[in-house]
């Protein structure tokens, strides 16, 4: 048992936590994006609220929500720890580096991109999650479900908010562009035949998902 405990405190163990929570968060993004995409198909919001209602009342989903929050928190805390430890591994910095010659800027900036995403998440969660879970949504829709869609419409009337969301999704795209394939590498899933496929899927995912997310506020702002 000691071996398992100390595994997570080792450099590889820390990577493992980042990779596992990262993949978990990616799977969440997929579900989140799928459900939110209802906004594109129904501008009355009934369909969207139906989905939101299901998510809010299904006990498996509610249980997973706790796991999700824990995963997110772990990802953030571990990410921050890693960033500080890694900075400490080079106490005297180079006067001049040419990182672009050997790696991508976003691969080197996961901490920064992550921090931007964290700031966004605080805003985002307080706008929707806190409202729906704790403070409560005042209105209901035609089906009698809480009208989360209405909250969205109000929020995205504000152009600055729309811009903030779009920029956050740009950060997410770059975060994923590195994180997706990186998680597989960390898990040890590097294979001459499959790695190129994973990388291609990773690029696709990193572009499509944030693009869809970014389209939502724009869509609503434009009243489409």
């Amino acid at each position, binding site marked *: 048992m*000691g*071996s*398992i405990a*100390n*595994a997570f405190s*080792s*450099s*590889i*163990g*820390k*990577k*493992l936590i980042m990779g596992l929570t990262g993949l978990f968060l990616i799977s969440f993004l997929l579900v989140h994006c799928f459900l939110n995409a209802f906004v594109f198909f129904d501008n009355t919001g009934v369909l969207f609220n139906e989905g939101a209602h299901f998510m809010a009342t299904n006990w498996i989903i509610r249980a997973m929500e706790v796991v999700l929050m824990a995963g997110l928190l772990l990802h953030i805390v571990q990410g921050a720890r*890693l960033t500080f*430890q*890694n900075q*400490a*591994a*080079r*106490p*005297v*910095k*180079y*006067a*001049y*580096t*040419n*990182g672009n*010659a*050997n*790696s*991508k800027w976003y*691969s*080197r900036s*996961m901490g920064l991109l992550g921090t931007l995403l964290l700031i966004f998440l605080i805003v985002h969660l307080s706008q929707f999650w806190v409202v729906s879970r704790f403070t409560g949504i005042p209105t209901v829709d035609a089906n009698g479900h809480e009208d989360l869609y209405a909250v969205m419409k109000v929020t995205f009337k504000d152009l600055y908010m729309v811009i903030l969301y779009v920029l956050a999704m740009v950060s997410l795209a770059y975060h994923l562009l*590195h994180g997706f*394939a*990186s998680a597989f*590498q*960390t*898990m*040890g*899933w*590097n294979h*001459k035949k499959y790695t190129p496929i994973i990388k291609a899927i990773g690029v696709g995912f990193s572009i499509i998902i944030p693009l869809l997310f970014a389209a939502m506020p724009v869509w609503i702002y434009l009243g489409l």
Partner: protein
Amino acid sequence: MSTGNMNLTLKIWRQKNTKDQGKMVDYKVSEISPDMSFLEMFDVLNEDLITKGDDPIAFDHDCREGICGMCSMFINGRPHGPKDAVTTCQLHMRSFKDGDTIVVEPWRAKAFPVVKDLTVDRSAFDRVIAAGGFISVNTGNAQDANNLPIPKAQADSAFEAAACIGCGACVATCKNASAMLFVSAKISQLALLPQGQPERYKRVQNMVAQMDAEGFGNCTNTGACEAECPKGISLENIARMNRDYYSAKFVSEEEG
């Protein structure tokens, strides 16, 4: 003694010893031939400094043919300079232009303290190997070499991992000063060979533990190490090490 016509400005890190603060100092060299190696250009500069009564610049170098792994300069923001797949001693001045300014710094990492100027202490690597980078076979205990056929592809992969020269460019270029490429190359070499199997899981645990104890950073898969490695050691090795590590920690019943 010089035969060429290149004039260069050098910005070089000077540091008297480990405790000294150190700073960048500017130097000029002239009549540099494009056929010189980068280290031979340093020879010219040092010859000049000695004649003038100044302290020559200390830098590590030995074989000057790209195999001993001793030379270690961070040139214009990259380990071993602008050319791919070469060491500093194999970098020739034809890779630069007349009038260039070249910034030269030592490898920088907590685990590689500066000894003097551009010379650093890389003994952390030796300690990682001593922790498990071997097969425990005493002299005289070996069976006939051909009693153990090894598929060529596997032997070739092991060789590719074993080609590491231990120069530390991977650590130097990694934004986290991580040593995972170096450590994984040795682990991979031995994990790929049948001889390495008995100690496979013990080895990966011990070597990773030592690597962590030395104060190297954590890998974040930027891929810079692979891109800068003069011997083209692949990131696949890191993935293999990770796999072996998980197997060792979560599957194997042996305690590490």
